[in-house]
C-alpha cells in the first residue's frame, strides 16, 4: 500500500511539473456527475481496504478505494450502518467517490448528510504531501475542519487517501407506509410530521399513473414505530427495503425517462414548483427531482425563487456547457478560488468538475 501512496505522489509531482491535470477516479460510478472529465486518470480504486473498525467506537476508517458494498457488509455484520445511505450508482462505487461526491440517500433529511458523518481524512494535496485532519473521535475542534470540507468537493482539493466516518446502529425495526396525497398536501404532511417527535427516516412523494402517492419509512424502537404507525395511518408497503434501494439508486420508472434530470435542493416548506416536467420529492420536501428539458435558466430561476438551487444531475448535453451547478455570487467564487489555491496551487485535481472557473 505504501508504494501506491508513493506512486500517487510521483504522479502528482509530474502533473504539477508538466501542468497536466489529473482526473481522480475510484470505481467510475459517478462519472456522470459534475462537469467535464478532464485529465489523465489517477486510479484511486487500487488503494483499498478497511484500516480500522471497532463497533463500540462507532467509527470506521477505510482507504478511498474500498468498495462501498464491502464497507456496508462489514457494518451490517455488526448491526451498524452508514446513516447517510450513500447511493452507489454502479457496482464499483468506492468510499472515496461517495465522500467526494457528497451524495446522500433517503435517510439524509433526518440522519444527516455525508459531511455530518465525516470525522477525519488523510489527504494528499497538490504538492503530493500527506496530511491528517480530524481523527477517529466523535468531537474534535483542533484546527479548521478540513475533513468535512472534503465532502462534496468532487476531488478538486486533493486525494482522500483514508476517511474516518461515524457509523450508527441499525434501527431495531423499520416499516414503510403509503398514503394518497396531492403534492401540496404531501408537503404539508411531511413538514408537519417533521415538527413532531416521530421516527420518520425517509419520505418520497411521486405521481404514478393516476395516483399521487406519499411513501414514508419509520425507523427506531419497536414501541416508537408502532405508535407512529397508528398516528400516521396509510397502507403497509410490501418489500419496502427494495423500494428504498431502487429509489436511492435511481432505478425506478421516474428516473428511467431519458430527458435531463435536475436535482432541486429547496427549503422543505417551498410550495409545489410550477415548472414543466415530472417531479419526485424526497427528504421531507428538501430534495425535488425534476425530469424536464426546459431551458436551464428557467429551472435555475425557479429554484432560486423558491430559496434553493438546481443541479443538472444527469443528461442535458447542451445545457451542461453552461455549468452543472448553480453559479456562485462573485465574492463566494473568489473565496472558492483561494481555497482551491491553498490545496492545489497548480490546479491539477479534477479541473472544471465543480465549476468552470477552477
Amino acid at each position: 500500500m505504501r508504494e501506491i501512496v508513493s506512486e500517487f505522489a510521483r504522479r502528482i509531482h509530474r502533473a504539477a511539473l508538466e501542468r497536466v491535470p489529473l482526473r481522480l477516479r475510484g470505481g467510475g460510478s459517478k462519472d456522470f456527475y459534475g462537469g467535464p472529465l478532464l485529465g489523465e486518470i489517477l486510479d484511486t480504486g487500487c488503494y483499498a481496504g478497511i484500516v480500522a473498525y471497532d463497533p463500540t467506537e462507532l467509527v470506521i476508517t477505510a482507504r478511498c478505494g474500498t468498495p462501498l458494498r464491502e464497507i456496508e457488509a462489514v457494518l451490517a455484520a455488526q448491526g451498524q450502518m452508514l446513516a447517510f445511505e450513500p447511493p452507489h450508482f454502479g457496482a464499483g462505487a468506492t468510499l472515496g467517490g461517495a465522500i467526494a461526491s457528497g451524495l446522500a440517500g433517503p435517510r439524509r433529511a433526518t440522519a444527516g448528510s455525508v459531511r455530518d458523518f465525516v470525522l477525519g481524512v488523510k489527504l494528499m494535496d497538490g504538492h503530493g504531501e500527506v496530511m491528517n485532519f480530524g481523527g477517529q473521535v466523535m468531537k474534535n475542534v483542533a484546527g479548521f475542519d478540513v475533513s468535512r470540507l472534503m465532502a462534496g468537493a468532487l476531488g478538486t482539493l486533493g486525494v482522500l487517501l483514508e476517511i474516518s466516518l461515524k457509523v450508527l446502529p441499525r434501527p431495531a425495526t423499520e416499516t414503510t407506509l403509503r398514503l394518497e396525497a396531492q403534492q401540496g398536501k404531501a408537503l404539508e404532511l411531511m413538514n408537519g410530521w417533521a415538527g413532531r417527535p416521530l421516527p420518520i427516516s425517509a419520505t418520497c412523494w411521486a405521481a404514478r399513473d393516476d395516483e399521487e402517492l406519499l411513501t414514508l419509512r419509520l425507523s427506531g424502537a419497536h414501541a416508537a414505530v408502532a405508535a407512529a404507525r397508528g398516528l400516521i395511518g396509510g397502507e403497509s408497503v410490501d418489500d419496502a427495503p427494495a423500494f428504498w434501494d431502487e429509489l436511492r439508486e435511481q432505478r425506478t420508472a421516474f428516473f428511467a425517462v431519458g430527458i435531463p434530470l435536475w436535482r432541486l435542493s429547496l427549503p422543505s416548506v417551498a410550495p409545489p414548483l410550477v415548472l414543466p416536467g415530472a417531479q419526485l420529492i424526497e427528504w421531507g420536501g428538501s430534495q425535488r427531482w425534476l425530469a424536464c428539458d426546459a431551458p436551464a435558466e428557467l429551472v435555475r430561476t425557479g429554484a432560486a425563487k423558491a430559496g434553493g438551487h438546481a443541479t443538472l444531475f444527469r443528461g442535458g448535453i447542451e445545457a451542461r456547457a453552461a455549468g452543472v451547478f448553480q453559479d456562485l455570487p462573485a465574492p463566494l467564487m473568489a473565496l472558492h478560488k483561494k481555497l482551491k489555491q491553498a490545496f492545489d496551487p497548480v490546479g491539477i485535481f479534477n479541473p472544471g468538475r465543480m465549476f468552470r472557473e477552477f
Partner: protein
Amino acid sequence: MDMDKQRDNLAEHAVVVASTAIAGVIKALHRILPEEGLLVAEEEARPYECDGLTAYRQLPLLVVLPESESQVVAILKLCSEAKLPVVIRGAGTGLSGGATPVENGVVLSLAKFMRILEVDPLARTARVQPGVRNLAISEAAAGHGLYYAPDPSSQIACTIGGNIAENSGGVHCLKYGLTVHNVLSLRLALIDGEVIEIGCGALDSPGYDLLALLIGSEGMLGVVLEATVKLTPKPQLAQVVMASFADVVTAGNAVARIIAAGIIPAGLEMMDKAATAAVEDFVHAGYDLAAAAILLAESDGTPEEVAEEISAMRAVLEASGATDIRISADEAERLRFWAGRKAAFPAVGRITPDYLCMDGTIPRKRVAEMLTRINEFSEEYGLRCANVFHAGDGNLHPLIMFDANVPGELERATSFGAKILELSVEMGGTITGEHGVGIEKVKQMCVQFSATELALFHALKGAFDPHALLNPGKAVPTPRHCSEYRLTGTPRAQP
C-alpha cells in the same frame, strides 16, 4: 509598587492610544458608533480583558459594541485599512481564551445583537443574531414543541455566535450532534467588510461546504452577523439512569457496552469521586458519594420507547458491574440528576481558588486507562483533579485545581494539563473536543499537527483574512511557537 506599575501601564496605554493612526481610528469610530458603543478608557475596557480562561488577561486598545450590520461593516473596513487586529466576542464564556484580547487590538463585542429575528415552526428553523443566548433560542421555540439541540453547560449565558465559533457540543451531542450539525446558514462579514451568505434555506448549497469550515473557526475567518439554526422536535419524555461503580475502569467499560448493545443514549456522562463530592456539596442532587464513579445515561422519545431503552440500559449496566442503579422518577428528579453535572465547573470552582479545564477527546475504550494515568499525574504534580466526562463521546474534562497565588502552581497545573493533552493525541484522540484551541492550547497544536498541516491552516486563514487581523495568534500556532515548544522537551509524535 502596585500603584507605580499601574501608572506605568496607564502611561504605556496612553502612548499607544495617542499615536496618530490610532487617534484617527478612534475619531472615525466616534462617527460610526453612539457614545456608549465605544469604550476607550481603561476602566471601561477592563471587563473585556479576559474570557472564561481568566488566567490570561490582556487589556485591549479599545472595545466596540455595534448595534447594526452597517456599523460592523464600517468598523471592519476601518480596522482593515489601519491593520488593527480584531477579536470578536460574544458572552465571553469561552474556556480556551478565544476571546482574550490581543495587544493593541480591538474587541468587537456582538452583545447588542440579541434579537431572535424569526422562528419558523413549519420549517423548524430560527433566524437569530449572534448575540442571542443559546438557551433563549430553545425558549423562543418551546411554544411550538421545538428546541435548539446543542446544549453546552454554559447555555444560559453563552451566545450562538460563540457556539458557532467554537463548534460547541453539550451533553446530548452523541445523539443530536454538535453546532456544525445544527446550523443551516450564516450571514458573515469578512475582514474587508464584504458581507456574504453561506448556506441557504435548503439542506445543501453549490460549491464547497463553507459552513463546515466556518463553524469552529474560532473567530479567525469572519464575523457572524446572522445564523439560521435547525430546531428539533422536543421528545415527549426523557428519563435518566444513574449508575454507581466501585472503580473507574468498570465504569469506563460499561460505557462501551451500552454502545455495543446498539443504544445511542440521548446523554451519557461520567463523573469521578472528586467531581461528585464537589458537586453534591453544591447542588444536593443525591449522588452516591461512596462510588468511585457514576454514570448518567439519558433516554428520550415516546413513553413506550423510553421504557424500552431504559430497561435495556439498566440490564447492560447491571451486567457491567454497577453497584447501585437509580432511575429518575419524574422530571424534577431528572433535572436534579443533571443539575449536578451541569454545575460541575462552578462546583469545583468553589473548592479551589483556581482550576484549569482540559478538553481532550479519546476513543471511548481508552477512558479507563486515561483516568488511571490522570490520577498518576495528579500525584506527580501534587495537584488535585476532578473528572467530568462526556463519556458517550470520549470527551474528557479533567479539572485541575491549583492556587495561582502559590508560586509555581500555575506552571505546574499547565504542565499537568499539557501531559493530558499530549496523552490524548497519543491515544489517537485530540487536544480539544469542544472548547477550542484559543490561546490555551495553541502550543499543543504542534503535537497534534505537522508543519505542513499547520501551513495549510495558515493558507486557509489567508484565503479569508490575508493580513491575519481576525483573532491573530489564536488556534493555529506559528512555526516559532512549535520550535519553542519542542525545545521545552515535548517532541511531536509522528503518526
